[in-house]
């Protein structure tokens, strides 16, 4: 029954007229307004919009860390009401557990699920190797650089094998050089291990470089302004004519929004 429903819709995440209002009465503040979104399996969707527009709130609604005030988020056909392991989260601030080693962080989800030690170690090791942190298994996060911490965060989310991975401006705190490097890493990781990803950013280059589809949001309250399907071949070049053309198109759309 569950399966047929999934096939019918052919999408992992469905946002059905969702809205979010913080506060009540006069002090209320509408942040997300009537967003409809269907995300297919193994699709890389980038949610792109101006700063403070409600992108992160939208992601938190999908995660179940915030509750919608109207509409419903469905993952695998089931409504989202609370945080849960079928959705993985990668945070801007990494949110690694500082008292656990790299290995401890990556295997955390499996440990909570009661997976046997030898089995979860093997699986965690695979993802630690995948994100390029071989040799750092026993290091504590405090000793790693910002880019390395973010790799741990990505491995931690992957290792739990969620249906969808939600990434909240994961490279927002990194310097420009590391950022380019991490974008290439994400590209490499996602081509090795296909996953459904929802990626929030306010960086247009990052959006075009990574996305199968870009959802452009309006200023607060966030609504869907426009969608762009990006079908440039991968790995993409930041300076190819098609890339720059799309960049110009989206930028002009955003400038229009400011007026």
């Amino acid at each position, binding site marked *: 029954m569950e399966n047929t429903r999934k096939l019918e819709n052919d999408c992992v995440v469905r946002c059905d007229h969702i809205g979010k209002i913080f506060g009540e009465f006069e002090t209320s503040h509408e942040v997300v307004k009537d967003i409809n979104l269907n995300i297919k399996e193994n699709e890389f969707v980038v949610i792109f919009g101006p700063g403070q527009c409600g992108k992160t709130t939208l992601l938190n609604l999908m*995660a179940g*860390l915030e509750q919608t005030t109207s509409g419903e988020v469905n993952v695998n056909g089931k409504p989202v009401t*609370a*945080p*849960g*392991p079928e*959705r*993985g*989260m990668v*945070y801007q*601030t990494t*949110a690694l*557990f*500082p*008292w*656990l080693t790299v290995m401890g962080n990556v295997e*955390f*989800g499996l440990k*909570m*699920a009661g997976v046997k030690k030898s089995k979860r170690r093997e699986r965690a090791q695979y993802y630690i190797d995948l994100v390029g942190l071989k040799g750092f298994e026993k290091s*504590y*996060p*405090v*000793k790693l650089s910002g880019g390395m911490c973010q790799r741990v965060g990505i491995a*931690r989310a992957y290792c*739990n094998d969620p249906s969808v991975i939600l990434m909240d401006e994961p490279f927002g705190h990194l310097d420009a050089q590391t950022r380019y490097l991490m974008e290439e890493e994400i590209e490499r990781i996602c081509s090795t291990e296909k996953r459904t990803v929802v990626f929030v950013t306010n960086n247009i280059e990052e959006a075009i470089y990574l996305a199968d589809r870009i959802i452009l949001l309006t200023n607060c309250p966030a609504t869907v302004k426009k969608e762009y399907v990006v079908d440039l071949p991968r790995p993409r070049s930041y300076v190819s004519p098609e890339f720059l053309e799309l960049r110009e198109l989206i930028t002009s759309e955003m400038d229009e929004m400011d007026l």
Partner: protein
Amino acid sequence: MSKQQVRDKVSTILFAMLSVCLLLLVWQLAVSGTTLGKMFPKPIPVFQKFVESLTVPIGQYTLVQHAVFSLYRVFVGFVSGAVVGVILGIAMGRIPVIDAIVKPIFNLIRPIPGVAWIPMAILWFGIGETTKYFIIFMGGFANVLLNTYAGARDVDKQLIGAAQMLGANRRQIFVHIVLPASVPYIFAGLQVSLSTSWMAVLAAEMVCAQEGVGYLITGGMNSGNTTQILVGMLAIGLIGLILATLMRYAEKRLCSWKIRGN
């Protein structure tokens, strides 16, 4: 260790020795050169007495036995204070109802120093060991409770969210997130509590005891024996230093994840 680190360590030790020698020299000169000598013993006899009393009893016991008496009392009072402080602190930090009930009472009791409980404790428990345990307990547990409370209450909400997203249930979040996040705070509390417990045992022994290092210094006072007082004070200082060092070592082992560099 690199060459630079070895050199730094050696010079630290040399300077420490130099400053202690300087203190002893000033002590010797002050006592032999002025009338201070009438009320204050010279350093050499103090050290002689210190070494001698390791084997020759003062009162009924040797210095080592006195120290063991005091340490045992601190141990009982401190450990019971720590256990109650940690449990109550975490309960208050995580369960709003308990916080609301306990905090007002606690805030009333907290500013009363442990030693202020001495008269009441003697009336309740007599002058036996229970009195001393009680005084030490009252002197130490508030610090543990306060720090544990702060740690348990201020656990990063994002980390709790991250654990939930990875499938942790309420019990797992408590064991794997709240407890480890509170450990550095608990240790800060234990550190302060140990030193206040050590102060409380001396106060308790000065009032009502026939043994322990606190008894040594009051005994010296009552018999006008300044050398014995200084031997007692020296022992108090040394034991306090050793306790603090042990505590720091334990903290370093348990909270190694907070330390940057190698």
